[in-house]
């Protein structure tokens, strides 16, 4: 029995495993998505709202209501309805929004960039401030700096976002007039500025419209900072805990024994290792912000997906609500997938060779 033979066997097994795990991964994504559809479908059926009412409004006379009810064909067997539902959802067809009369997908395509832009900026703020803060707290464990970072994080964890948003609005908009509100852009620019990507900051930069950029920035900065704060609270806390863990490892001692500087040990070795789980944390926090937009967007009248969903909910526009839920859910799945992949590339131990 030679060692190489065993080794080869293992390698073969590993590559077979890689294929199998890729397949498994697909199955996982598919079933998750199907489950998402099943639950949204279920919610859509169970909801005690007359769908006809949603289409017609309250003041429609009875015969119109009756006629529409029949026309909407709510009489097929459930499984058949579900089948149709799945097929449509897979082709990106979530029906027509009652509220806007547009296909839900068209609406989402219009509002989602607003949410993504907000959440992305929030996450960037959160990560670029949160990670260094977390590292600082871990390195200076027990110091005043650590305590301050912890308190910042704890408060961020404990404060109702919509409440803080209200207060922030009161202070920075109503009293100080530092920022703009509401929406993404001033009315003035509404008809002189034609976005391409839907991400206004990017578009304004792209087209070199500095005044527009300034205006868009003034609109986005407050909600993005708030979201950034929440993201920061989470990220700094997790960074701290990961860093503490890494700093205790033997390889840190080994690195010190090599004579490396503290900075190199912290940023090059410990953080590089902490980065592996951190990627997941940041991705999760990003997903959380996308979802958390439901509350923030309401307060800031931010025309994004969150506001779209709440509005639709309040108007019993279930197609839109479920479509939005599915899109956010899909993005969640996608982000999880992405963070998984990132995890794999960052961590050589899980990297398939």
């Amino acid at each position: 029995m030679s060692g190489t033979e065993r080794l080869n066997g293992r390698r073969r097994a590993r590559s077979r495993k890689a294929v199998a795990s890729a397949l498994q991964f697909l199955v996982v994504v598919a079933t998750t998505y199907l489950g998402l559809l099943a639950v949204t479908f279920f919610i859509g059926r169970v909801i005690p709202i007359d769908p006809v009412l949603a289409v017609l409004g309250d003041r429609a006379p009875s015969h119109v209501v009756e006629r529409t009810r029949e026309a909407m064909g709510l009489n097929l067997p459930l499984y058949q309805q579900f089948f149709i539902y799945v097929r449509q959802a897979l082709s990106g067809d979530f029906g027509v929004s009652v509220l806007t009369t547009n296909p839900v997908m068209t609406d989402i395509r219009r509002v989602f960039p607003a949410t993504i832009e907000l959440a992305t900026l929030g996450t960037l703020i959160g990560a670029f401030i949160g990670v260094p803060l977390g590292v600082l707290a871990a390195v200076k464990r027990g110091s005043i700096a650590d305590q301050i970072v912890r308190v910042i994080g704890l408060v961020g964890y404990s404060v109702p976002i919509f409440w803080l948003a209200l207060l922030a609005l009161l202070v920075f908009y109503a009293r100080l007039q530092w920022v703009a509100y509401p929406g993404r852009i001033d009315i003035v620019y509404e008809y002189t500025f034609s976005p391409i990507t839907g991400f206004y900051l990017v578009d304004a930069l792209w087209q070199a419209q500095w005044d527009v950029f300034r205006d868009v920035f003034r609109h986005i900065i407050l909600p993005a900072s708030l979201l950034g704060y929440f993201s920061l609270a989470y990220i700094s806390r997790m960074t701290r805990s990961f860093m503490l863990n890494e700093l205790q490892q033997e390889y840190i001692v080994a690195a010190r024994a090599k004579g490396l500087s503290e900075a190199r040990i912290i940023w090059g070795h410990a953080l590089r290792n902490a980065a592996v789980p951190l990627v997941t944390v940041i991705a999760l926090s990003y997903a959380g912000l996308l979802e958390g937009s439901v509350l923030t967007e309401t307060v800031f009248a931010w025309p994004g997906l969150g506001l779209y969903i709440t509005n639709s909910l309040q108007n019993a526009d279930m197609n839109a609500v479920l479509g939005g839920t599915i899109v956010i859910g899909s993005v969640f799945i996608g982000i999880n997938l992405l963070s998984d992949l990132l995890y794999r590339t960052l961590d050589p131990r899980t990297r398939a060779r």
Partner: protein
Amino acid sequence: MSALLTVNDLRVRFPTRTGVIEAVRGVSFTLGRERLGIVGESGSGKSQTGRAIMGLTPSHAEVTAKTVSFGSVDLLSAPPKVRRDLRGKHIAMILQDPKYSLNPVMSIGRQIVETLRRHESISRSEARERALDMLAAVQIRDPARVFDLYPHEISGGMGQRAMIAMMLVAGPELLIADEPTSALDVTVQLEVLSILDKLVADRGMGLIFISHDLRLVSSFCDRVLVMYAGKIVEEIAASDLASAKHPYTQGLLNCMPVIGADRHPLPVLDRKPEWAL
């Protein structure tokens, strides 16, 4: 004999919630370019002694000594920068378990190169060459391949060799090896030890070899320090071990089952409280 390292009354204390733990309680010795073994049972303070010399004691611990000098440098009063420059370049340390002591997300080669480039301003390619040479020196058969591997992709024995390569690549004068082979298989253990032995001999380094295996230490080192409860209870030349005076040392020697020696039951240590005083 010109002393490479002088340690006088070294003490390491850990303040904890339940009181102060004295891990090392007044250890003194001098070391030339020789192989010095430190043995003792678990918790006797062997590692903390080694780490205190390296300056790797956890920050909340308290390290005091009359002197800890490396050549002409007083280590304890030296500024951190000076100590850092010494570490890796002049004093190096090998840790027990390669599985945990190598950075898991950095390739073996980069970790070796990192030591070199920290202490010598040389080009990337030159550093790579030196690292490959070093890998070859620790008897790794295919250095170029191993260079790019990650710690989890190599075996324990290979990891320990890489660790040795990483620590010795900058050519230190003093090496502290803290149980460098106890995580390895017996057969591999010997290979690694012989590599270590050869490198130390070739380069004329001083070596502090920490182990709990008295027999191994005595066969590997010139001189042995026996530690018990943070103190050195006996210092003895390896060749004189059979005539050790301290009952602890004798107990340690005797309690190991030996092939061919038919002792049932095995003699056991009868610890006396006064040993710890």
